[in-house]
């Protein structure tokens, strides 16, 4: 087993992501699945476009998963994040973590999605049933001074 991170242009199969984790040493697996909602902030949504800086998103995702592995004491982690045009209900992200103990699996999965929200160079353009589109307000990624060159 090892950490698996993908930025996917094709639809994500959550069961396939879950199948990448697990081990006879593990008593728990947690799968998180993010999907496109039909409504956001009171507006009816028809779909969403995910744009990404793919060359950077892959290493950022690997870094986040690596941090989660350290917290969880398990490297059975798989993450796939979708890019492109997504309809309502389409899977935007699937995160699977397995671990000997359930608290670690929950915490690691939660850590990954929270970090993805604020660090992954991905942007969402929401399409509304009115025909309009808008980039969603995002989060400013934290930049640590020691990361400067």
């Amino acid at each position, binding site marked *: 087993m090892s950490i698996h991170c993908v930025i996917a242009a094709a639809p994500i199969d959550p069961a396939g992501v879950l199948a990448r984790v697990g081990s006879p040493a593990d008593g728990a697996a947690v799968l998180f699945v993010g999907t496109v909602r039909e409504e956001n902030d009171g507006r009816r949504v028809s779909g969403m476009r995910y744009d990404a800086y793919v060359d950077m998103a892959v290493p950022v995702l690997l870094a986040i998963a690596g941090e989660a592995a350290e917290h969880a004491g398990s490297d059975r982690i798989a993450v796939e994040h979708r890019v492109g045009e997504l309809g309502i209900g389409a899977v935007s992200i699937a995160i699977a973590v397995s671990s000997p103990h359930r608290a670690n699996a929950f915490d690691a999965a939660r850590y990954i999605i929270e970090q993805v929200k604020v660090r992954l160079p991905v942007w969402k353009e929401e399409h509304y049933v009115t025909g309009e589109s808008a980039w969603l307000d995002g989060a400013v990624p934290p*930049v640590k001074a020691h990361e400067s060159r």
Partner: protein
Amino acid sequence: MRVNLLLFAVYRDLTGVDELVVDLPEGSDAADAIDTLRSTDRRFARIPARPVIAVNREYVLLDALLRDGDELALIPPVAGG
């Protein structure tokens, strides 16, 4: 030196540009590159003066020194997940 500049999402929509090469004096940092970009054209002035940036696919502060061939990406607020 020449730096490859990448623009995404709302920055790309604001400028109509997703990638361009900027010529800079040796010793420039990322802040210099952005100042240069914003002064070249009215469209580029729409970009914030102090955006989040990545150099060679790592988040860095604006005082990061640039080298010839570096990839400098301007990162609008992100919305993963």
